[in-house]
């Protein structure tokens, strides 16, 4: 089994009309055994920027600590929050620093940029950025997620519809992946508010 499949994970982000949604599964496993069903994979960087980290859980935690540290330093120096594009470049640089001994993580970055234009991107474990206009996925369930998102996604969805779409896409994909699941965690971010919800799916 690959090191990326050691803990099991699924993360997806989608763009809507002046909003975005980011969702992840909640399982923490060790190969075939489930250790916990409330593991957090999506982290807040600032009010309008979230990062979901899939892959090896220890690197998820280490990378999150390093990124929040760098962002806090940036906030102290620049006296403002980082733009999503800038943050994506930062994550890419930090991952490429470890080119020959990488963090086994695939981040999904989602944020609202200037004028509340939603921004999403993903990258591989050594920082190759992939920008998208519609949705990005990562984790052990990524192949299922690609299929589900491609068929369910429509451009310019309102927040409620976007929430419904991303939840259905996540749940139907993790149902086909034994290493991810045990519910879902969805964050819907608009220019005025953040809605955080926990999904109950097939608990297995």
């Amino acid at each position, binding site marked *: 089994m690959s090191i990326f499949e050691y803990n099991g994970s699924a993360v997806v982000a989608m763009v809507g009309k002046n909003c975005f949604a980011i969702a992840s599964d909640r399982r923490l496993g060790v190969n075939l055994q489930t*250790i*916990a069903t409330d593991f957090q994979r999506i982290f807040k960087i600032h009010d309008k920027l979230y990062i979901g980290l899939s892959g090896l859980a*220890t690197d998820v935690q280490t990378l999150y600590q390093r990124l929040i540290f760098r962002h806090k330093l940036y906030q102290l120096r620049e006296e403002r929050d980082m733009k999503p594009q800038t943050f994506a470049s930062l994550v890419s640089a930090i991952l490429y620093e470890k080119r*020959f*001994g990488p963090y086994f993580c695939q981040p999904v970055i989602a944020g609202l940029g200037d004028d509340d234009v939603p921004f999403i991107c993903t990258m591989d474990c050594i920082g190759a950025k992939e920008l998208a206009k519609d949705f990005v996925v990562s984790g052990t369930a990524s192949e299922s997620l690609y299929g589900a998102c491609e068929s369910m996604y429509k451009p310019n969805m309102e927040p409620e519809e976007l929430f419904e779409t991303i939840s259905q896409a996540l749940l139907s994909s993790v149902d086909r992946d034994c290493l991810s699941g045990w519910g879902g965690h969805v964050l819907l971010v608009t220019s005025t508010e953040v809605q955080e919800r926990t999904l109950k799916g097939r608990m297995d």
Partner: protein
Amino acid sequence: MECVFGMVGDGFALVAADTSAVHSILVHKSNEDKVMILDSHKLLGASGEAGDRSFTEYIQKNVHVYEFRNGIPLTTAATANFTRCELALALRKVRPSCPVHIVFLVSQNPYFVNILLAGYDKNIGPSLYYIDYIATLHKVDKGAFGYGSYFTLSMMDRHYKSGMSLEEAIDLVDKCIIEIRSRLVVAPPNFVIKIVDKDGAREYAWRESIKDAAGVSAA
């Protein structure tokens, strides 16, 4: 075949571990205490390579140093994060004598020790942290490591409820030990149970089916 497991109850947390020190097919001793008392209100149960269990002594000394330097004890969460950081650092630290290869250099000298950290904090209450040997940290209500975890996690999934009394929890621990003894092929014979609550961390009981060095008769 090491078994360490623990759970959180009403105002207390407990960690139980087997007590056999094994090397390949040989049992060196059956009364090895694998649950270390870190300080007045913390327990650290470690399972894994015998030499690396001394990593827990390293954590204990650092916890003491913090209390001496700062006058207040570390919280359980802080101790858990410190332990995780030490494990994570060791995971990717490059030893100077190693030649550098143009391949994926990952683990240099990791500690092969899995840890369950139980503690009691005055304003927070009891807590239990699961820390993997590759430095995965998670706060849990019940956790287990080793081959025994296949049995203990299932038993705890069935019988555990949050806010159990001490008697109920010890009863569940005994059920888990019976399960390990009857279903694990090379089951460890003896277990130690330690608890931590507002009155401190202490040894609660041993569950022995073989007594060590007392002249086991062949009859």
